[in-house]
Structures are given as structure tokens and as C-alpha cells.
């Protein structure tokens, strides 16, 4: 399963991802409507992009009373059907990561749909802080990094 | 064979300080040829190797080289050649 993943060390809080995302989905520039948001800890020089991690059994789908939030098996990815959304906000409350949010103007919730398989946030992140790859690849890379530490080699991951 | 000194900024894993190398070059070697030789022997991590060649600033004995004529300058004994990127301000 392909998923968005974040290398926090590389994020500089340029927020180009937020701009690309809000434009692509809403046709305007508005970080408040972005499906990806950067949380900053300026006293530590740490910037953490929060993304939808594309759960296999998403809480947002489980709690939706109308089925507006559903899984599109073709990608696979979670999607929200805005016509069916009644704006209850339960999915926002249910997401453990804070990756779902609410649009006051349209009175619907929104969350990441991976742009149908080619996420624009990834292409706009010049530093490579965002990647889109199978979660198994991430596991493999971390195994190697751990092993390299034991082997006393320079850690490349 | 002229003996020359090269100074680099932005090479390898240690970028600071004066990075001085000396070498002998064949008689008649131009700055262009020297640049090509340096880039081809630099490894992948070298900034100088990866960057667009047109963006390299080159100094000969402390003076900036103007590309058109300057690259064809033939190196002489004890010449100092510096490769770097110039940025200012901030």
C-alpha cells in the first residue's frame, strides 16, 4: 500500500505543500484548507508535516454516518463525497493524527485523497521531506539503517 | 611542467577552511581543461562535481575569470586557481 511518509529532519516549514494542496483541491491558496499542515516548534528548529497516512481500516470511514467518507479501492485511498457529507465533523474528531479538518464555508469535512495517486505536495517539496511509497519500503529502509549502526558503517537512510 | 595550487570551496564532506591541493599539470594546460579534469575525478558528493558548470566562479591568482577568453588561459608556474560559488548579502 502506497502511503505518504515524512522525513521530519528535512522539513524547513516552507509550506509549499500546503499551497500546492489547497490550490489543487479548492482552487485557492489557503493553508487552512490544505490536507497537509506543518506544525512548528521554533524553539527547537523542528518542523513536522502532518499528513494523512492512508489507514487500511480508517477511523474516519468507520464513524461516518452517511457513508460520505469511503474507501476508493482503485487507488486505494479514502475519499469524501461532498454531496453526501452532512458536516457533522465526526471524522475530524475520530482521526488519531489530526489529518482531517473542516471547511466552514462549504460546511463539509475534508481529508487527503493522495491526489488520485500523484500527490502534489510531494512534487512541491524540494527537500524530499515528503515521499510517496509503499509502507514496506519504509520498513526496509529502517531495517537497513538499524543494521548499519551495528555494522559500524555510515548510516545512509 | 608548471606546478599549480588549487583551492576549492564546497568539496566533499568537509567544506570549511582552506582546501588546498597542489599538482603538476602538463605544459599548455588551459583553465578549461583543468576544470574538466577536476570535475571528472570528483566523487558524487562533491558540490563542485554536481553543480551546473556555468555557475562555477573561477579565480586565477585572486581575480575573477571572465569566461569567454579566460577559460582558455594557459596555466603558468605557481598559479593559484580557485573554484567556488559566489553569493552575497543577508
Amino acid at each position, binding site marked *: 500500500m502506497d502511503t505518504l511518509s515524512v522525513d521530519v529532519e528535512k522539513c524547513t516549514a*516552507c509550506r509549499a505543500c500546503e499551497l500546492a494542496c489547497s490550490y489543487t483541491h479548492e482552487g485557492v491558496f489557503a493553508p*487552512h484548507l490544505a490536507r497537509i499542515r506543518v506544525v512548528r516548534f521554533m524553539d527547537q528548529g523542528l518542523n513536522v508535516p502532518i499528513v494523512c497516512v492512508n489507514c487500511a481500516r480508517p477511523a474516519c470511514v468507520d464513524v461516518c454516518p452517511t457513508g460520505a467518507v469511503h474507501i476508493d479501492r482503485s487507488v486505494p485511498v479514502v475519499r469524501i463525497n461532498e454531496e453526501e457529507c452532512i458536516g457533522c465533523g465526526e471524522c475530524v474528531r475520530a482521526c488519531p493524527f489530526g489529518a482531517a479538518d473542516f471547511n466552514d464555508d462549504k460546511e463539509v469535512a475534508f481529508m487527503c485523497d493522495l491526489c488520485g495517486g500523484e500527490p502534489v505536495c510531494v512534487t512541491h517539496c524540494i527537500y524530499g521531506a515528503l515521499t510517496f511509497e509503499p509502507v514496506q519500503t519504509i520498513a526496509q529502509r529502517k531495517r537497513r539503517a538499524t543494521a548499519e549502526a551495528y555494522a559500524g558503517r555510515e548510516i545512509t537512510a | 611542467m608548471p606546478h599549480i595550487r588549487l583551492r576549492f570551496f564546497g568539496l566533499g564532506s568537509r567544506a570549511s577552511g582552506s582546501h588546498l591541493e597542489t599538482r603538476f599539470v602538463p605544459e599548455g594546460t588551459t583553465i578549461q581543461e583543468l576544470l574538466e579534469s577536476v570535475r571528472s575525478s570528483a566523487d558524487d558528493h562533491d558540490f563542485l562535481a554536481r553543480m551546473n558548470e556555468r555557475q562555477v566562479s573561477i579565480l586565477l591568482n585572486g581575480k575573477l575569470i571572465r569566461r569567454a577568453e579566460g577559460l582558455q588561459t594557459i596555466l603558468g608556474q605557481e598559479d593559484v586557481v580557485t573554484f567556488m560559488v559566489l553569493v552575497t548579502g543577508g
Partner: protein
Amino acid sequence: MIRDIGSQRILNVDLSSGETWVEELPQEELLRFLGGRGVAARMLYERVPPGIDPLGPENILIFSPGTLTGTSAPSSGRSSVTCKGPATGLYLKVNAGGHLGAELKYAGFDYLVIRGVAEHPVYLWIKDGEVEIRDARHLWGLGTREADRLVKEELGDDEIQTGLIGPAGENKVLFSCIIFSQFSSASRGGVGAVMGSKNLKAIAARGSGALRVAEGEEFFDLAAQIRQELAQDPEMEFSYRWGTAGSIPGCVELGQLPSYNFSRVGIDGAEKLSGQYLEDEGYLTGRESCFSCSTACHRFVRTKVHRYGEVQDSGPELETVCSLGAECGIVDTEAVIKGNQLCNDYGLDTISAGHVISWAMECYEKGLISEKQADGLDLHFGNDVSMLELIRRIASREGLLGDLLANGTKQAAEEVGGDSWKWAIQAKGLEQSAIDTRMAKGYALAFAVNPRGPDHLMTEPIAESGPTEEARHLIGKITGDEKYADATLTEKRADIVRWHEDCYAATDGLGFCAFTSTASYAVNPDNMAQLLGHALGIQFSEEQLMLAGRRIVTLERCFNVREGARREDDVLPWRMMNEPVTEGPQKGLITDKEELDWMLDQYYEMHGWDPQTGIPTPKTLKDLGLLESCGDIVTD
């Protein structure tokens, strides 16, 4: 709330009466002055009569993000802050990055115009179209970091963006600054003092609004393309890797590192001041970006041996390692990191702070400031403990020396007397930034004619020495021949400076970072005009853009003329015009009065300004459509 880029709104605040009101900007003003710095200059000209006290209620402080700030245009997050400057008594525009500008735009405003003086310390809370003037008495006296934290805590939102002054601005130090979102700063000319004189501690902004461009697809695609081009540009990659202080080895190599108060051009151990050293030695623990910028030239650092206490904060820029380091005869990395942190927390411009201190050191070494007058401090060059202590004293105007230096080198030299004015490296009342104008003639001209004083962040002709092929190509385009890409020539400097003036004004008006348009050229007048055109849904040409830039620069000159500035004020500091370079590859070079006069003659003629006085002629004003607004200066 969705706002179209072309529909700009001005938020006015009168701190004396507590009134606030909103104006809409007619689109034709936007087209004539591009927004940002340009419209702010126009408003300042119209709303601030000549002769007012910069630290009084009649001065106006204008915050203006660029017209494209808040969009995906790369590196477009910069804002201007405009007022009459307290250090010079002249036009003052300062520029800052960070994230405040974008947030103001999402909050519904393109300009924030502040007049008057509050009865007691206050801060502005701007959220989604509403503004509240809130009590700041409990914040007064706090450093910028603590104040930022408290504001976010009491407003209950950690995503608020702030613009803050520290104790230095509160004490009206003539080189106090405004800190934007922690890592950026509107620094020069005492802009922080203007805010302090209004009893205004902070601007806090939060916006959930949206910005819309007229031709979305064209805009977004072009912006994305330019972002990728910038990412490939080695200049930008260099800045990401080592920050602006990555230029130190280059300066050392070329023998152009201002040291010991511009009396020398190099210092032993200079590599310890470099951006490369910060990375190699493990001081660098992070890199930070301004809004929408993929360069991330800002540093985040942590001290290692904590010689002056532990620092974990924003790291020093090129100008800072020069001013607090080499200029003070100091090459200790931790001293400069600490000095930078103190300046950020107290809210002081590092360029002036360093040059004021190095001036004092030269005075001390030459016996013009005694140990007694130095309040017991040893002010020999190289004394890092004294440098740090002086920063503290200046910020609080403590002691004879702290108070003296807080007024800048021009006034301090007048008090100290003797020959001390000769090594006050200032003109118009502003300390020169760490670029040696003796060896770069275009810079010399640009610094001399800069309306705010001799520094680089108004017009920096980086291309003039032809450091890259792109730069040489640009010089060839401007002058007709690439051979003029030579900073030791006086020929064609006027042409080169004028092009950079126009480009800089356009860059500032739209909100771009000048690195992208004058160090890299991936952002350029052609694609800036295209982006503006797509944003507004109109045709807009490169010529119109550069003409608007010309109009802005001329208007700024008119402001200064109205305040009494003339050709005689377009000078460089005495040392820069009278003492040739003493060592290194540039030994013997100088840009003296004769050369400057020659270049000024050319420059004024090209601009259509009277060569005796530097005043724009009626014809020039008419051609730029400025006769109506600036006609009052031609009756002088």
C-alpha cells in the same frame, strides 16, 4: 473568505484614538505601484507631511506583504515595512521574510497602516477581518522570544504569526528592529524604534481566508516551474547548504572581508565565521524557510561548549558574522552565535550593532574613549565578552556608553569628537553594511544613492562583477557588452544600478526574495510580469513592470527631496572614500569623490534628475505620472 489578488484592502489603525477602518485600494494604483513596497511608498508620501518627528505620533508605520505573497509563487513571502526613519530622518523601507506577511493576507488585509501613539503599551490582534487593540503592559520589557510565547498562549493559538519588538525598540534604540516569526527581521534604520515610540509591542495575525488568482492553471504551473528552476540553481543550493555565511570563504579569497571596522579586508581565522564551519563543526542543527521559499537559507544552531551560555536559536547570517565577528576583530563562532541571539531577543539590527561596537573599539584603541567613559569595559578589538556586554547595554541604554551608542555612530561621533567621525562608517545616519565599496564601483554608486543609507537591501548589483555566466549575460543585456561585468570599472555602473533598482522595486512590490531575482535569475522581470498578469487576469509586460519599479524609486527620491536631501547627501562614509584598501588582491583600490561624482552625473542624467541637486525634473515626474502626487517638490 476568498479574496481575489487584485482586490487589495488597507487596514488603518490610529493608536491615539483607538479607531480602525478599512479602505479598498483601486486596482489602477496596484498597476502603477505593484503593491507591497510601491503602494506603501505612495501612502507614506501622501500621509506623512515633511518635517515630522519620526518618533512622534504623526509618523506612520506601514506593513505591506507583496502582491503575490500568500500564493504558491516561489520565495514570494516577503514584506516591506515603511516609515520615516529615525536614524536618518529620511525615507525608510525595510524588508523581512518569515510568515507574518502571508498570514496578514489570509486575515484579509494587504496593508497595515498604523499612526498615532497608544496611551500605554498595546499589541494588535488581527484575525479574519477583525482587529483588536489589546493591552501589552505585561509584555513590555520582555525579549522577543518570551513575548511571542506569551501572546500565543493568551490568545490560545500556536499558529499565530507575530511581528515583535524587544526592549531595544521599547527604548527607541536607533537601530532596533522588528522580529518576524522568530527567524526573520525587519532590521535597519530604527524601524523598531518607530514601533516602540507608538507603544506598540507586537502585531499578531491569524487568517483562515483564501487567496484566488484569476488564471489559476497558468499561474500555478508557471510558479511550479520556477520553483523547480530555483531548486536546480547552484546559488540557491549553496544558500541551503551553508546559508549566506557560506560566502565567507569567497570573501576571504578575494580579499574583501570587512574587518576591524573596515580598516582591514581580512582577519586570521575567518573560516570559523563561515557557514561551512557551522555545518562541519556540528553547530548547525536545522534549516528554516520563509513562507513559500524552497531555499531555506536561514540557520538553526546550537552552541557546543556554551562558553557564553547555551544557545539554541536562530543562527547568524553573513552580515552578522561580519559585523559582530570580523569587524570587531572576533573569530569565535560561539561569541557570534551568542551575539546574534542577544540581538534577536533584544530586537537589534545586527549590522548596525556590530558596526557601532567596532566603531567604539576603534575609538578606544585610539584613545578617544577612555576606560572610564567605557564604564570599565575593555574595548580592544577582539574582546568578545565586551562585545556581548555592549549589546545588552545598548538595548537598555545602560550607562554613558550604552546610551551613547544606542543613537548610532553618526550621533555618537558628534559627541565623542576628534577624528572619530572619520571611522564612523555611516552615511545619511545609517551604518554601511559589510560590503567594501572601494572595490566594487556599482555597489559604491548604489550605496551612495540608496534613499535609506549605504546598504545592500535596496539595490544590490550582484551581477556587476560577473560571478556567473547568467550574471555576465545580464550585464551584457543591460550595457550592450559583457566586458562591463567588471566591478573595478566605473563605466556603465549607472546603467547597471538603475536596472537593479527597478528590478528590486518590482521584486519587493510583488513580495519576492531578492536572492531569486538578483543572485539567481530564475525569478526575473519577464516571469514576474507574467505571474502578475495571470494573478490579475490581464496582460502585463516586463516593460510595464520595470517602469512601475522606476516610478517607485523616483517617488522614494521625491520623499527624501521633500525632507531636504540633495546631491550632497549621496555620499559614502569617509573611510570608504578616502582610505584605499591596504592589503590583499584588491590593494590600493578606492572609489573616491571624483569617481563617485562621475558616476552620479551619469546616474542623475539617466534618471532625469537635476545634476546639481538630485531633484527629479518636472518632465521626469510627468513622464512617470508622478507630477500630480509629487509636484510639490518642484517648487523648491
